[in-house]
């Protein structure tokens, strides 16, 4: 092994399943990471990126996989080289967390639901560093603050289910970073983060690299992030490495057709400048098919909206003490107004933890929420009987931010997809199963996958399963919560095109929750920007993107990564200071924004004094 090599993977083979039904997830993979270097692995969803990472951690065997061949070498701090593949369980354990730490792809299910956030991080710190409990607490708190968790001290006392997706992801990041490893494996670490925080995290990682010479193996599908952070790029496709090179070379002169396709599909913020309506992605090789779509109908904004929300408010109590006396409240959604017309896509963007998912869940009445008005297709949803509400849910489907947790682990994905159709009696059993398979294929999976269980899929595959499920019942509105965040851009393009195609043909409406500004720009008719539970800016996409008025919107635009290694913004300022939090003591509700109409349909919240905000 070369002296600079920190990690070297040679001819790695990874398999799943019994001999009879074996699945080769990774084939003959070669890879190395140097000290202090950042290597990005990009690749098709399901191509074996996560599995590779897990085998470096020696965790793949706990998930039913096995390292079937090849060698993984790692240089320890004392310069000795170990063969990870042949470590005994105890040595493997000592290596984990200390030498190599990992941020898992699915933050929602990766935190232990019964322990507080604080305990889980403190535990990680104390395992490898000889620190007292209180010192470890301090470290944990510090790291949490670094990843910009609002009200970190208080969040330490909370349990995972009380955090938003992005917050959990940041907790995972904090946990990995607090170990101060030599090699950090980050598996899609920013899928649930809005771009401002994402930038912050990337910055933080870079700082640690500079300070401690930490190397990073960065798995992502976001070419903007790759361009921003990577030194070298490895491209994986169907379990194999198909290309490797400097980040500049890869971006400038991709060789493999897949790499080319990948870069061709990268959405780019600002590419829609000057257009009013959304457009599908141009997929290399499928240009004809993609452009030959039904021309989009103009949305009739004079008609009644499909979904109309006024004054939606959702708050969570936070209990403390032995009997959980409520002392504070999360104002997750405060007086939110929304309209969605048939056939329209409303992009909902906003800071992580600002209440986007909660908005979706409140609309579907999955959480206790209050509202002045909540109508769907003219019907008052709050007044519906349980059974009518249930029928109505056929027309509103929800793609959860966390696809893994939202799939019943005991049902095959084929059945999970067929289930909503069966529930509403839309299809006969056989037809529903057939249609499930068809939908799977539509989202880029294969019929074989229908009889597998959720745990046997990659993150991106699960996301597509969740989308397929939502499409099954012929809904009128789909609330897609970060539904494509874990997909590599080529698959993402394919899935989004499918969604847009369906929209055009059948007048589907989407509430598209996402942090990926480029994607939002591409597909939205209108955009709403959320901050601390309230809408701060909303209006036609073009107006908001090209003429952002609110300070937060502007920050978002600026922070979006650019998929071009040439324009790295290494100098971007770290945001410091108090992180605004939606948690407030009881009896101190936040001030409700006043909206000004700056242009037709373009509403902007009057800026509040910062002091009010922080109160």
């Amino acid at each position, binding site marked *: 092994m070369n002296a600079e090599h920190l990690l070297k993977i040679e001819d790695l083979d990874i398999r799943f399943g019994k001999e009879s039904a074996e699945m080769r997830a990774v084939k003959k993979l070669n890879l190395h990471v140097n000290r202090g270097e950042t290597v990005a692995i990009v690749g098709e969803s399901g191509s074996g990126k996560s599995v590779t990472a*897990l085998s470096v*951690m020696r*965790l793949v065997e*706990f*998930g039913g996989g096995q390292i079937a061949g090849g060698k993984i070498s790692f240089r320890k701090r004392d310069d000795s080289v170990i063969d990870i593949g042949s470590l005994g*369980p105890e040595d493997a*354990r*000592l*290596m*984990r*967390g*200390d030498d190599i*730490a*990992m941020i*898992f792809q*699915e933050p929602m*299910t*990766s*935190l*232990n*639901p*019964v*322990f507080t956030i604080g305990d889980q991080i403190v*535990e*990680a710190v104390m*395992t*490898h560093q000889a620190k007292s409990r209180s010192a470890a607490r301090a470290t944990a708190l510090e790291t949490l603050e670094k990843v910009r968790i609002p009200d970190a001290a208080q969040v330490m006392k909370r*349990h995972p*289910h*009380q955090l938003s997706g992005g917050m959990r992801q940041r907790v*995972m990041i904090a*946990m990995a970073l607090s*170990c101060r490893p030599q090699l950090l494996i980050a598996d899609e670490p920013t899928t649930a983060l809005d771009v401002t925080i994402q930038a912050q995290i990337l910055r933080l990682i870079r700082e640690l690299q500079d300070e401690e010479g930490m190397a990073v193996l960065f798995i992502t599908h976001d070419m903007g992030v790759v361009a921003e952070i990577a030194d070298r790029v490895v491209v994986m496709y169907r379990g194999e490495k198909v290309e490797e090179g400097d980040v500049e070379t890869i971006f400038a002169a991709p060789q493999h057709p897949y790499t080319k396709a990948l870069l061709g599909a990268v959405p780019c913020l600002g590419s829609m400048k000057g257009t009013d309506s959304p457009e599908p992605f141009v997929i290399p090789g499928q240009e004809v098919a993609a452009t030959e779509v039904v021309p989009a109908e103009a949305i009739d904004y004079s008609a009644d909206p499909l979904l109309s929300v006024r004054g939606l408010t959702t708050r969570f109590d936070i*209990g403390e003490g032995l*009997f*959980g*006396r409520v002392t504070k409240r999360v104002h997750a959604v405060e007086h939110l107004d929304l309209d969605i017309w048939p056939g329209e896509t409303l992009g909902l963007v906003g800071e992580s933890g600002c209440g986007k998912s909660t908005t979706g869940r409140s609309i579907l009445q999955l959480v206790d929420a209050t509202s002045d008005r909540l109508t769907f297709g003219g019907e008052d949803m709050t007044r519906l009987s349980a059974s009518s509400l249930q029928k109505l849910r056929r027309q509103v489907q929800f793609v959860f931010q966390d696809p*893994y947790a939202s799939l019943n682990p005991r049902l095959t994905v084929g059945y999970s997809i067929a289930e909503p159709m069966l529930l509403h009696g839309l299809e006969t059993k056989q037809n529903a199963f057939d249609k499930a398979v068809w939908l799977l294929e539509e989202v880029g999976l294969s019929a074989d996958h229908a009889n597998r269980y959720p*745990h046997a899929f990659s993150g991106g595959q699960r996301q597509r399963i969740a989308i397929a499920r939502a499409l099954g019942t012929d809904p009128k509105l789909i609330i897609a919560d970060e539904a494509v965040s874990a997909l590599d851009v080529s698959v993402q393009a394919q899935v989004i095109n499918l969604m847009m195609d369906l929209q055009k043909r059948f007048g589907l409406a989407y509430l598209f929750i996402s942090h990926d500004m480029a994607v939002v720009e591409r597909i939205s008719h209108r955009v709403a920007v959320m901050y601390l539970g309230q809408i701060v800016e909303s209006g036609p996409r073009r107006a908001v993107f090209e003429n952002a008025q609110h300070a937060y919107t502007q920050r978002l635009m600026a922070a979006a990564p650019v998929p071009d290694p040439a324009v790295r913004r290494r100098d971007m300022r770290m945001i410091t200071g108090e992180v605004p939090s939606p948690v407030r003591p009881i009896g101190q509700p936040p001030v409700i924004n006043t909206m000004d109409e700056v242009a037709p349909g373009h509403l902007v919240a009057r800026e509040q004094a910062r002091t009010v905000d922080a109160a």
Partner: protein
Amino acid sequence: MLNYFLRRLAAMVPVLFLISIFVFLFIHALPGDPARLLAGETATQAEVESIRRALNLDQPLIWQYVDFVANLVTLDLGNSLRTGEPVSQMIARAFWPTFWLSICALVWSVLFGLVAGVISAVRRGSPGDHAGMFLAVSGISMPNFWLGLLLMQYFSVHLGWLGTSGFDEPSDLILPSLTLGAGVAAVMARFTRSAVIDVAREDFIRTARAKGLRERIVIWKHALRNALIPVVTMAGLQFGFLLGGSIVVEKVFRWPGLGSLLLDAINFRDYAVVQSEIMLFSLQFLLINLAVDMLYGFINPAIRYK
């Protein structure tokens, strides 16, 4: 939560009241005449009648019920029909032996069951796992008296290490609690095993490993804590049972506890004692189950009570 707790406490009063009616009716519907039983099979009818008068059993049922409730409310509980002793005194005397016995049985069996269950879960399919199953099944299919007598024959009669029976010193607890706990341990072990297997493959266990935690901690802290709900449920159930006193074990080991007291009281249709004991059991159950329910919320914070 506090609210929920207080509401549950308050709800116990009507529940106990209903139980009192139910118990009263049930007991009086049972065939059997306390006067006759006290007199004995070879007594003459005249003897029986005189006993009946002495015990006020010739009064209308409704008055007997009113008496019973009045006694409950004043916590006086009345006197035993059989011995004339105050029931509260009899129960107070029998309570502690049973209490200690149940605590001992519960503690060893739950600890043992947990450990055995976790180990079998971790080594699923290994010879150790099979041995665990073997033991557990033996534990459950061995009647208490059988195990009890076996232990007594070996440790008391053959080796002479322990007293056979009775409760005079702490060491007397050993054999009965072993006997009593065997079935509980078996169920706990199987239960824990199943629950741990359920969580062992969760993502957050992988996270725990990724932190480099010792396997011990991964399993005993992260997995077990998540698996604890069914286990605590079971332990609560068993504890409730045990506190009622096991008639079989108490009989074999001549244990001066609630189980023996109940058996005698039932055999003699000693209404006052039976009723009071059942009220006590009900109260214990209500309290234990409340405690278990509250524990759920602590074990898994996602469980909410409104």
